[in-house]
């Protein structure tokens, strides 16, 4: 043991070092966030509560193809359709069991029309399961509340791709593009 080691032991150098560190830390700002008062904004593209997109004309964009329900790994999306006048497809019920969702956003990717989305809203705890079983009306109102207007459009561009136009054929690929216009 050198003299240095002995001095270290006698004067408790290591402990004093630790104590200066803790004292220094006492005068730094705490990293704690006082949650309900000070909220941290979610990162852009955060996958939170579900919503059904409402078109500017006020109707749901969903056509009831059921791809979202097919791709959903936790199988928590239920789509019920029926045939209306003119053989159109009518979406009778569109329900998401939010408590079973794993927020993978596969439904968002699968949807060819960008009709179902995950908003960045994350504070929707409740006392009953029923309140978190979202039917079509609730999902549409979620869109109105959290994503309507410009924000939704931005999100579509940035995070909710791919959509139908991403799956179109490149311009230079030789395929039948309809009859050539006559000169």
């Amino acid at each position, binding site marked *: 043991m050198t003299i240095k080691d002995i001095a270290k032991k006698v004067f408790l150098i290591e402990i004093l070092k630790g104590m200066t560190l*803790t004292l220094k*830390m006492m005068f730094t700002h705490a990293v*704690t966030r006082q949650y309900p008062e000070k909220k941290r904004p979610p990162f852009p593209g955060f996958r939170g509560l579900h919503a059904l997109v409402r078109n500017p004309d006020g109707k749901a964009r969903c056509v009831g193809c059921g791809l979202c329900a097919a791709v959903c790994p936790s199988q928590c999306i239920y789509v019920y359709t029926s045939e209306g006048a003119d053989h159109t497809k009518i979406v009778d019920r569109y329900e998401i069991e939010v408590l079973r969702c794993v927020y993978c956003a596969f439904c968002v990717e699968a949807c060819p029309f960008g009709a179902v989305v995950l908003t960045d809203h994350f504070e929707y705890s409740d006392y009953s399961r029923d309140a978190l079983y979202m039917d079509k009306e609730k999902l549409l109102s979620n869109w109105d509340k959290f994503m309507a207007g410009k924000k939704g459009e931005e999100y579509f561009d940035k995070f909710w791709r791919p959509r139908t136009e991403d799956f179109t054929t490149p311009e230079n690929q030789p395929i039948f593009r309809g009859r050539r216009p006559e000169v």
Partner: protein
Amino acid sequence: MDILETIMYTGSSNWMLNIVFIFIKIAIVIGVTMLHVAYATYFERKVIGHMQVRLGPMRVGYHGILQPIADGMKLFFKEDIIPADSDKPVFKTAPLIALFATMSSLAVIPFFEGFVIADINIGLLYIFAMSSLAAYGVVMAGWASNSKYSFLGGLRSSAQLISYEVAMGLSLVGVMILSGSLNLSEIVKGQQEYWHGMYLIPQFVAYFVFVVAMFAETNRTPFDLPEAESELVAGYFVEYSGMRFALFFAAEYIGMIIMASIAVICFWGGWTIPPVLLKWVPALAAVPGIVWFLGKVYFHIFLYYWVRATVPRYRYDKLMSLGWKVLIPLALANIVVTSIVKYAM
């Protein structure tokens, strides 16, 4: 002013009046101490929180200032659970012994010039006796709970208290030699003979031993083995709940305050300030002694929190070897050197 002086010096010829004054003093001391205990818990959580870059309690009142009151109310109204297999009379008396033994130490502590409930000549010995008695509460609680965790906690506590009591007693012998008295007020006055007004400087080895033994005596980190949360759940008071738990808790914090007061009285000059400081800044004489006393006590209580936030727990055999192989020889050497110096001078 007349009444205040009589209360302070208990010098009235009417013995009935004297007893009334003593009761008033007791009420003041216990009231103030209990308030300090409540807010010691609050500041402990705050200080350790900030040292760990957290905030500590923030919800009850402004920055959680009413937290100890909320805690107290909660503990008061909690269900009192007594384990079916416990030794009930012992189980019920243990927290009372712990609390009363620590509380009675308050009687001999001079808070400022002349304000002491019992100005007895064996003050220091009395405090040793009382802090040893408090160990009975701990051991009885550990035994009566009939739980292996409490039992281990009680055993550890008894072993720890016995070994550190020796070191603590020996560390204060140096102070006794220098002041020539066991009366705490006399010890404070004896320190005024030095220009620095503290036994801390001639007795720094004793002070070191005392501080380490003080941590062990009050079961605080790094010597909190009797209540090691991670291994013994809570130690000797695992089975206690509600108000009985609160009594142990209060006893522990009063013990901290008393040990801090002893350190202040024996090494830091109690309610006085260094005479040299008084010579430079005569205006300081106007500040009441209780301010200095409390300031020094708060520093020591802060030291408890500071060390708790920094140092991890000792291993049990290391604790014992530190007590017996380092602190006691150090204290003995200190006594020898102090005696020689005192005799030679």
